[in-house]
């Protein structure tokens, strides 16, 4: 079963890594601010899932606390930026 798990890892990890790199390219090219923030969001949730997968890969129970924190925190940046954009619009 451990062997089967490592085969699954061998397929899944390149998929996740390429997805993260493509999201990063979108963040570099993104013409407006919401595009960049959307890419940050996607990268954060993606990495949260990736961390949970890696916790099984390293066989360590202590690593599983990190994805909870990252998933809870990832949408904060959206709210700050939205507040800034909305309030700028109000003042005008």
């Amino acid at each position, binding site marked *: 079963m451990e062997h089967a798990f490592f085969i699954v890892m061998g397929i899944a990890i390149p998929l996740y890594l390429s997805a993260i790199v493509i999201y990063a390219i979108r963040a570099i090219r993104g013409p407006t601010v919401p595009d960049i923030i959307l890419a940050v969001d996607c990268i954060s949730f993606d990495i949260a899932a990736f961390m949970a997968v890696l916790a099984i890969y*390293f*066989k*360590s*129970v*202590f*690593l599983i606390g990190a994805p909870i924190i990252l998933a809870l925190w990832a949408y904060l940046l959206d709210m700050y930026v939205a507040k800034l954009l909305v309030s700028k619009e109000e003042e005008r």
Partner: protein
Amino acid sequence: MSLFELFLWSFVVLALVATVLISLYGIAKRPNLVKKLIALTILGDTANLFVILFGYRLIYPVAPPVLAQWSESGVKELLRKAVDPLPQALVITAIVIGMAVNIFIAFLIIQAHRLYRSVDTREIAKYGGE
């Protein structure tokens, strides 16, 4: 250790060195004070990552330095694969204290903006600071 692993390890170390150099450029050369703050934070994070990198061991079954359940064989197992705990203990305080100092710098920037109506160092220099 194979050549590819050595290459990747050297790449990691050199990329961190390059990040330190870029952030030093940002601190020294960019005129905006907020940009200087961003560069300062990147410098601090990279330095912390360096300190952690010194305590790492490049082996596959590697574990954080925490014991799940005490037993004689479990401790031996942990000593075989755990990373160095000392740099981690040093870096945790460094992160939180660095954040507090950053907040202090941010308040200073706001105060400068109140006094001079600008956060550009070239503009502020016109007011006769030595």
